[in-house]
C-alpha cells in the first residue's frame, strides 16, 4: 500500500517529524526524566525497545483484526497488547539480565502510558506500512525520542549552573527550551524528499 523507502521513513520519523518535537507525543516523560543525561539515555533505550516490539505486535494485530472484520476493536486491543507487552518485557528482562533490569526497571511501567507508543502503533496503521517499514518506523521514532530527550537533558544539566529568573523556573523553562529545540528541528524539513 505504501511505497516509501525505508531510509525515507527512518529520516522522517527520527528527524523531520520527530515524535516529541513535532507531534508532541511522549511529552510527559520528556518533561519528567530529562533532568539528567544518564536517566535520559536509559529511558530512551527502554522506549525504543518497547516501540519496536509493540510495532511488530500492532502489525500482526491489525492484520488479524482486518481478517476477522473487527476493525472497531483496534484501539482497545492495541492498548491491551501494549500494556501486556510492557509487562512481559519487564519480566523477561528481570529474569535474563538483572543488571539491565535495575537500570531500566522503574521506567518500564511508565512506558505503558507513554502516548508515543500508542501513537506509533496508530500512525503506522494509518499509513499502511508493511512489516519491514513498521519496524524501521519504530526504530526511527525511538531514536528520535532518545535524541530529543538527550539533547534536552544536556541543555538542562548546563542550565543548572546558570542563573535564571524566578519567573521561568520549573516547567516553563523546560517548555521554552523545548520550543527552541522544536524550531531547530523544523530546519530538517525537506530532508530526504527527492
Amino acid at each position, binding site marked *: 500500500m*505504501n*511505497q*516509501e523507502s525505508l531510509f525515507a521513513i527512518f529520516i522522517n520519523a527520527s528527524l*523531520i*517529524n520527530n515524535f516529541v518535537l513535532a507531534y508532541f507525543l511522549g511529552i510527559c516523560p520528556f518533561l519528567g526524566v530529562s533532568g539528567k543525561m544518564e536517566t535520559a539515555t536509559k529511558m530512551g533505550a527502554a522506549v525504543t525497545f518497547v516501540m519496536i516490539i509493540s510495532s511488530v505486535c500492532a502489525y500482526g494485530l491489525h492484520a488479524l483484526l482486518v481478517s476477522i472484520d473487527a476493525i*472497531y*476493536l483496534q484501539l*482497545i486491543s492495541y492498548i491491551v497488547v501494549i500494556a501486556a507487552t510492557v509487562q512481559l518485557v519487564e519480566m523477561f528482562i528481570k529474569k535474563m539480565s538483572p543488571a539491565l533490569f535495575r537500570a531500566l526497571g522503574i521506567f518500564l511501567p511508565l512506558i505503558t502510558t507513554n502516548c508515543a507508543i500508542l501513537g506509533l502503533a496508530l500512525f503506522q496503521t*494509518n*499509513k499502511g506500512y508493511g512489516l519491514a517499514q513498521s519496524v524501521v518506523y519504530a526504530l526511527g521514532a525511538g531514536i528520535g525520542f532518545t535524541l530529543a530527550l538527550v539533547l534536552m537533558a544536556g541543555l538542562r544539566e548546563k542550565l543548572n549552573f546558570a542563573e535564571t529568573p524566578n519567573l521561568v523556573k520549573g516547567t516553563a523553562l523546560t517548555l521554552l527550551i523545548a520550543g527552541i529545540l522544536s524550531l531547530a528541528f523544523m530546519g530538517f*524539513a*525537506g530532508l530526504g*524528499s*527527492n
Partner: protein
Amino acid sequence: MKEAGNTSGQTSGQKMLLTMTGIGVFCALMIVLSYQGTLPRIEQLKAEALEKAIFKVVPGMESKRTFRMESDGSFTEVSGKEKDARLVYAGYDKEGKLVGVAVEAAGMGFADVIKVIYGYDPEKEAVVGFYVLESKETPGLGDKIEKDPNFLANFEALDVSLTEDKSKTKNTVVAVKHGEKKNNWEVDGITGATISSRAIGNLLGTSTAEMAPVLHKNKAFFEVKKGQ
C-alpha cells in the same frame, strides 16, 4: 498454612479473571453497539462530503454518474459505492452533456498521504478543478495547498493535452517554484509549502499521465445517455 495461602490465592485469581472477563464483555458490547449505531451516519456524511467535492471540481455540473474502471482500461457504470474499486465520476450539465470527469488521486506529502480529487475536461484536455480530500500537512504551512488562492488558480485550467496519437500526455504536470510558472502545465508552487506543493504536482502528474489518455479515449462512452 501453605495450603490455606494457595486456596485463597486461587479464589482471588478466579475473582480477578471473572471481573476482567465481565469488564471485557461489557466493553466489547459497548464498542460494537456504538460502532453499529454510528456507521450509517458516518458513511452518509462521507458520501455527502465526496459528492460535494465532485460537484466542486467539475464546474457547471448538474448530475453525476459513477463508473468503475476495469483493469483493461474500459469502464462499467455502477450505482453507489463499491469496495476496492477505482471509481471515476462523470458530470453532466442540464442538457445531459458531458462537462468533465472527477478522478481521485493520492500521493505522499510532507507529513502523510495526501488524497485529492480533480476534474478532467476531455473537451479542453485540461484539469478544470481541484480539491484536497484528506491531508495532514502542517497547519499554517503545508495546508496552504487547500486554501491559497494563487495556488488553487493553477487548477482552473491546467494543460494536460495529449500527443497526436492520443496515447499519452504531451507534458507531465510538475510543480515549480513560486513565480517561475511559464507554461500552463506547470503548477505555481507556494513559498513556505514547497514540499507540499511539489507533492501535489507529482501526484497530479502521475495520475493525469495515466488517466487522461484513458478518459479521453472513453469520452464517447461517457457521453452515451443512460439506457441507450
